[in-house]
């Protein structure tokens, strides 16, 4: 409390002013862009819409909806991956950068299994059965990958400064990428063709089957994870270890086993995301995990790292923002080549959220004495 009082009285420094200006500028750009977009939608000949972008055309309802759905589907995948970052951070306090590669391993496993099933003719005749099978295989392989990673690369470093496992995780990430490169080659590998009902749009809201599938499966996975963490004994142990590993050990919790379970759960979620990726884009390459991994990490930070609901919310926010941001905010402002800026938009969301809420959307404000 004393610290807080002192801080309030402290004069604002140049950095504070700069941050305030940045916050205002960011909000202004977003607000003006959105207003110009709304002006476009009302009437493309609107002087405000014409002011920034004389070629403004606006979007139809169906196009707008397509953007949102595509963003939600992509965001759900980011969210699933982000859960792994967040959970590991929760118990061990470091960022497992190799987690994006676990996702890639999931997508690769799915590709191999589904190609085998397609060769056997089962992929076409029983798509749902095959899908369940590849999800099962991929989840197991990814959970195992994550557990082995923890055992080999991170457990020996337990207790060392946090930067050391962080750097190690970057090494593990390169290792997994290169293993995939050596085993499967550098070319993009395609998933077998999916049935028409997955590709075509459905009468229900005019959404492609694959996107409905992605959103439903992601939501189901999230519910399962919530149940495990909140309602089971293992989940209780995880929360206890996250709260304080030493006290948890004193209470009779096997900390090592709990940490292994956390890695396995995170890996399983990444495996699930990998399959969804495969169904949606039907193509995977050894670098597939890199960019989604970085964006999922951003999602975890946006949501407030260590917070599971936050990870999912962060994933959805980044997915939707990078999908609609270029056309909703940048294009009405007359920026050219907006579609090449989608990654920039995704990371701008991260910077914007950190400017306005430094602990993320769901991260709680720290007491001032803990801030140093």
């Amino acid at each position, binding site marked *: 409390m004393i610290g807080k009082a002192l801080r309030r009285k402290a004069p604002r420094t140049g950095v504070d002013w700069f941050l305030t200006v940045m916050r205002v500028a960011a909000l202004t750009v977003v607000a003006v862009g959105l207003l110009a977009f709304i002006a476009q939608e009302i009437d493309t000949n609107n002087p405000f819409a014409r002011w920034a972008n004389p070629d403004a055309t606006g979007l139809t309802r169906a*196009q707008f909806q397509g953007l949102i759905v595509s963003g939600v589907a992509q965001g759900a995948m980011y969210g699933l991956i982000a859960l792994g970052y967040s959970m590991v951070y929760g118990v061990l306090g470091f960022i497992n950068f190799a987690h994006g590669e676990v996702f890639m391993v999931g997508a690769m496993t799915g590709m191999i299994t589904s190609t085998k099933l397609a060769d056997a003719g089962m992929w076409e005749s029983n798509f749902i059965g095959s899908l369940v099978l590849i999800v099962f295989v991929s989840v197991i392989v990814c959970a195992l990958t994550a557990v082995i990673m923890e055992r080999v690369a991170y457990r020996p470093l337990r207790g060392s400064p946090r930067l050391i496992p962080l750097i190690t995780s970057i090494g593990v990430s390169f290792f997994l990428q290169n293993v995939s490169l050596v085993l499967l080659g550098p070319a993009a590998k395609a998933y077998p063709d999916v049935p028409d009902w997955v590709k075509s749009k459905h009468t229900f809201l005019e959404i492609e089957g694959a996107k409905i599938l992605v959103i439903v499966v992601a939501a189901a996975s999230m519910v399962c994870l919530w149940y495990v963490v909140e309602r089971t004994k293992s989940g209780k142990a995880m929360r206890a270890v996250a709260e304080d590993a030493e006290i948890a050990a004193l209470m009779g919790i096997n900390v090592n086993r709990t940490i292994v379970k956390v890695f396995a759960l995170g890996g399983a979620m990444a495996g699930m995301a990998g399959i969804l990726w495969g169904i949606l884009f039907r193509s995977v390459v050894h670098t597939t995990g890199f960019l989604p991994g970085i964006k999922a990490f951003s999602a975890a930070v946006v949501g407030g790292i260590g917070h599971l609901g936050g990870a999912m919310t962060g994933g959805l926010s980044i997915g939707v923002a990078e999908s609609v941001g*270029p056309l909703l905010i940048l294009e009405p402002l007359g920026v050219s080549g907006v579609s090449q800026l989608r990654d920039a938009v995704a*990371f701008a969301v991260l910077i914007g959220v950190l400017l306005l809420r430094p602990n993320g959307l769901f991260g709680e404000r720290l007491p001032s004495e803990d801030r140093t």
Partner: protein
Amino acid sequence: MNWYGHLTKVRKGRGVISLVIALLAVFALLATSCGNDDDGDTVEAPEATQAPEAAEEPEATEAPAPAPDPRGNALGDGSLGIVEVEAGEAIQIRSLQAITGDVAGFGLPIDRAAYIAADDYGPIHGFDVDLGASLDDLCGADGGQAAAQTIVADDRVIGVLGTSCSGAAVAAAPLVTNAGMVMISGGNTSPALTSDLAGTAGPNHVKGYYRTAHNDLYQGAAMAKFVFGELGFTTAAAIHDGDPYTQGLAQAFSDAFEDEGGTMTGFSGVNKDDTDMVPVLTEIAAGSPEALFFPIFQPAGDFIADQAPGVSGLEDTVLLAADGLLNANYLPLPQTAGMYFSGPDQRFGENVNQSTGKTAADFTAEYESRYGEVPSSAFWAHGYDATILLLDAIAAASWIDDDTLMIDRQGVRDYLYGLRNFNGIIGTINCDAFGDCGSSKITVVQNLGGEENIEASLNNVIYSYEP
């Protein structure tokens, strides 16, 4: 909701988080800056550090007796230096193509064609030609630059066959040509590397750069005439991926289409590693074009063809692509059935390469026996002719002096700039002052769909163009 004890953990990890975010910001900046490679960046050619290796056993081989004036009619004035190849050594040239990754289907046949052509050609004045190991341009500026630095470190090299991708040539050509070597590409088509065909050099043009592939201004014009005249469409849109090849071709199409009288309703770009194309397609769909031309590469091309029909406003839009996607990996994809592709005229028929006497049929037979497959793209022919041009140029600019083969680097360039009416597999080759040696014949083919129809699709010519 009480998920985790993040309160305590956040406190402990603040340093790490800041560091990670800083790293992330750096990544993002790097990614952005890599996307907009400044073409004006010229890199100083590193000095050649490796001295020519002395022959370990300078055996006296049966070389023809030196003439009174050993130089004879060899071209050149020595201004770029003379390379001496001692008896028993080989003439060094290199092949630099996109031989790995998604673009390998395009670059690998060009690379292999160089080795086949060198074998067909045989020794020059009794000296063998050594191509060394294939180098990889990775279809980008980074790969082109790295490989070019490896090449110029060896000052015995006379010429480089490559690159496959214009993006790689932009970085590689200045390095290679500054070292006095020549570069002949069988795959580059960007106008930026040569000229606008009206006498103005492109921004990335350098002396000593040649190509047997066509200039994309022809390809853009061909596609525009096809869409406007044959399909009867008046609106179209184009998507590129920021690479000089794709951007140049999309722009050439756009300009030519408007010259024809059509309207471009959209012109946009994607990133090479994008997978979700719905946003860019929605941007394009806002203008409701009748045709969408995306002269890009795999895998981005897979995703555009796959996702376009699902975007509201593009359901009936006709999809068109160019020679970067006209290959045996892209045509069998289910989403590409019915698409139109522009590309070089592949009906090589009975064309004979005048220096080796080989036809397309001879070549493909040899290719199949060596590699167990048919060439996955048509640019093998351009690669073959490019190799022969380089070898002919070396023959014309070299002479034997006391058992040593002398090669005048300037002479090699003189030969190529002066080349007229050379009969190659691709047709008649004439080099202009900017290094454009390729044929201007472009065809548009329609994909019949399916793995079994690749060959038939490549020959399914719907439209032919010649200026």
